[in-house]
């Protein structure tokens, strides 16, 4: 079973897809398998992450388990 990356806002356009199925494992390993241009954007300092709908603080070591959903959230722009 895979894990999923979810790209919000302009990150979806950069990734060319709203979601991407990836092999579970440590985040750095997951990112290393992506297009480097996309990986750089995902690691931008204004991009936050949420694991299964819960916002991460930014200092956690993230290891994706099978079925996990990791979302990359650029700054919100208001309704």
């Amino acid at each position, binding site marked *: 079973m895979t894990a999923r990356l*979810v790209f*919000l*806002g*302009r990150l*979806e*356009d950069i990734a060319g897809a709203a979601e991407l199925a990836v092999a579970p494992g440590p985040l750095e390993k997951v990112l290393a398998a992506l297009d480097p241009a996309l990986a750089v954007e995902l690691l931008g300092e204004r991009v936050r992450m*949420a694991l*299964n*709908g819960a*916002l991460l603080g930014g200092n956690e070591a993230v290891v994706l388990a099978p079925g996990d*959903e990791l*979302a990359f*959230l*650029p*700054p*919100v*722009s*208001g*309704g």
Partner: protein
Amino acid sequence: MAPITSDVRLLGEGFSPTDQLATFNAAHPEAGGIVSFLGQVRSEGGAQAVEALELRHYAAMTLPGMEALAAATKARWVLDGLLIIHRYGVMHPGDPIVLVAAAARHRRDAFAAADFAMDHLKSQSWFWKREKTAAGWRWIEPRADDHRDLARW
């Protein structure tokens, strides 16, 4: 006292703000005052005119965040009712984007609650916006104003 009702909706389709407000008003005969805010896609002319606007949301977080905001708003002011409706998807000039209404016994509570909810919806809710002008689609960055508005509370 009856429990305070609140109605929080994230919609992918258009809605009629006045129909929604009429229903809300009718449900709150005990309230002396009802404050509403309607945000709509601006119609303007010129080369910079917005032809379309898209809001994207994140299913796992956007509606839960709006519900938490409604709970925080109800906890902070004495309200009889609270309505929050927000669109996502592609919208055009004149289309409603957001409707907030607060019903309260006292006018000041209704004003403050609607104002608070709007400031937080604008700056802290999980929506990403892009606009289409004659130059094409462009993602919108957060505005400094939104953060200033939030610092008021």
